[in-house]
């Protein structure tokens, strides 16, 4: 057999092998399950059990915070606590001590159990997440701290629960920044991710707008009219140090850190028209990103930092556009609606959420960066504006004025589970969501 024939035989044999493999795969399974009967995992969340002295308020707060976080996640269907049997009241730090049969009887697939101990130094919390079906420990975390830290321990445990179920940590142990006028002026406030423990962190007594968290450090940038002009400021949260980093003539608004924390995209009107620019963290001008007769505002970075979504009126009505940072090429993203605003690029890069004015109200929509898959997320009366993503991409924070003054709401990325944050009274708007704290 000559070498050429051998080659053909080899090719033929390879082809046959491939065919056989395909046939084997095509034979298929005896049963195909193409739907799941439940869209959430039945979870039994038991109340904290005291190992020594009882701190009822602390335990109640912890359970409430943890329950709220798990409910917002949408991953779980809570099992009715009224049906719990005696195992719910027992301290079971290891899986061998848990009566899984009881939980199985109640239809739970997972159970959260915890106990606490008050010591001279503070509080020790022992939290466990068990897999009822496979009778094993999924997550065990011990926390030690002050009694006042119970809320934060609950947020952190909720983050870990999400990680043990999905592989991706939650974003509950984070902070949100927002603008509120409750002190008479629009100032910058900081609160926990569920709205508790809100604190004012600026005292400019003028007008503060558009905060954004640094992706790495615990600092913020925002625009303030403190010096009469809308200038860009940077503030270190823990030290309280503040600096005016951009004071170009005209607008210095809507600053956004790039994901690498090396540059800031913002709108400047130094040349007479509102355009997008890149500046350094020290305020030095790096690059002009856009150049058109229309107004270009509200930049939002892609997670890779190579593109910026923004709003422009260059083709008439305000629409969402995307500019490539390196080449400067601009492409239009939205075509529907007469007024699209405030885009926010998701942390996984798959979606851009924005608000659109229709029938007299702004509602939130999402669209893929290639312009496909547009879908409305919120409905009804009230303006839903200034959407921002949680750092894990699971939730969207936004302002809503359907009941009067603007309040902050959070919902899942698919638009479900919307709820108002527990913020103090007053108008609240322009939210920003920090990275993990």
């Amino acid at each position, binding site marked *: 057999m000559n070498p050429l024939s051998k080659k053909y035989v080899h090719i033929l044999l390879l082809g046959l092998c491939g065919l056989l493999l395909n046939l084997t795969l095509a034979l298929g399974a005896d*049963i195909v399950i193409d739907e799941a*009967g439940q*869209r959430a*995992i039945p979870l039994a969340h038991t109340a904290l059990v005291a190992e020594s002295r009882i701190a009822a308020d602390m335990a109640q707060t912890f359970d409430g915070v943890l329950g709220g976080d798990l409910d917002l996640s949408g991953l779980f269907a809570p099992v009715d606590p009224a049906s719990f049997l005696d195992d719910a009241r027992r301290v079971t730090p290891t899986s061998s001590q848990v009566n899984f049969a009881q939980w199985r009887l109640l239809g739970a697939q997972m159970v959260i159990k915890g106990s606490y101990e008050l010591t001279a130094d503070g509080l020790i919390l022992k939290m466990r997440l068990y897999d009822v079906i496979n009778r094993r420990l999924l997550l065990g975390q011990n926390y030690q701290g002050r009694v006042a830290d119970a809320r934060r321990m609950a947020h952190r445990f909720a983050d870990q629960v999400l990680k043990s179920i999905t592989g991706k940590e939650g974003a509950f142990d984070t902070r949100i920044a927002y603008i509120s006028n409750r002190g008479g002026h629009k100032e910058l406030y900081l609160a926990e991710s569920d709205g508790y423990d809100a604190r004012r962190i600026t005292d400019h007594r003028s007008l503060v707008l558009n905060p954004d968290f640094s992706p790495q450090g615990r600092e913020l940038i925002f625009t303030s009219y403190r010096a009469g002009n809308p200038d860009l400021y940077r503030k270190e949260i823990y030290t309280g140090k503040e600096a005016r980093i951009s004071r170009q003539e005209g607008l210095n608004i809507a600053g956004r850190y790039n994901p690498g924390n090396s540059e800031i995209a913002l709108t400047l009107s130094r040349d007479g028209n509102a355009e997008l620019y890149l500046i350094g963290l020290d305020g030095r001008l790096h690059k002009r990103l856009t150049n058109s007769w229309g107004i270009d505002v509200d930049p939002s970075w892609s997670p890779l930092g190579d593109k910026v979504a923004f709003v422009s009126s260059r083709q008439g009505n305000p629409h969402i556009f995307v500019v490539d940072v390196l080449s400067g090429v601009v492409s239009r993203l939205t075509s529907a609606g007469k007024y699209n605003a405030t885009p926010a690029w998701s942390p996984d890069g798959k979606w851009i959420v924005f608000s659109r004015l229709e029938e007299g109200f702004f509602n939130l929509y999402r669209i893929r960066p290639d312009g496909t898959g547009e879908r409305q997320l919120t409905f009804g009366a009230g303006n839903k504006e200034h959407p921002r993503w949680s750092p894990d991409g699971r939730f969207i924070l936004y302002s809503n004025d359907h009941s009067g003054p603007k309040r902050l709401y959070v919902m899942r990325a698919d638009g479900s589970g919307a709820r108002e944050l527990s913020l103090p009274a007053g108008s609240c708007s322009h939210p920003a969501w920090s990275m993990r704290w």
Partner: protein
Amino acid sequence: MLLLSLLLHGALLLFFSAPLVPRLDTPRPVYQVDLLSAPVKSPRAGRPDAGKKPAVTKKKAVAKAEPKVEKKTGKAPEVKKTEPPKKSVVAKPVVKEPVVTPVKTPPRTEVKVDPSSPQQTQDVIAEMRRKQEQRQRIEDLKRQLATLSASPSPQTSVPQAPLGAVAGTGHETGADFASWIKQAIVEAWALPDHYRNRGLWCEVELRFDYRGYRVGYLMVRPSGDGYFDATVKRAVMQLEQLPSAPGKSLNLSIKFDPKELL
């Protein structure tokens, strides 16, 4: 006139005030339909030709029919005594239960003929002929039915098809084991939306012994996402035993491939 006006106004008032009167919501009964029938070895198919009942159901029919026959035979003399001969000629009971009484003799009828009226005589003779023809027809039907009962029930190439399946010809009411297992796993599978629309799928193998106990579980083709596979494992692990013994070991491969949601 006044009375008429009052009546008309009253009727109008009643007509328009009817929607304002609160309706009494009578508690409606709640019916629970168990669509999950226990699996059987040979489920009945939905094909019309699969409805022919084989030996097992035939026996039941005979056993049920026996007391009916006694009742009819017990009632027959009474009919003769009380009813006029015209009614006793009607062979309705024989039509209802043809298999049970194949050699039933027709009841005798005493026809009174008035010799003074030839027309009446002719009528009676015609009536007798008509009834005789009817009896003959019934006998023919009985013979046809007996022939059909003796013939074997039809079979197709898919003997294990579940109830309602087009290709099945089983003879027991219920689903097959594969259908039951599928339903049980679907109900047990808790898959958060987070996992959908990601193109994840996996395949597992399940083994059950002849008593119906799960004796083996193997993740043949994992999805690549350990957390998705964990939801599948939790669903499968809840299926420890089949509701009845299959009589032989079962080895099933199950593919978990959630449909995409919009």
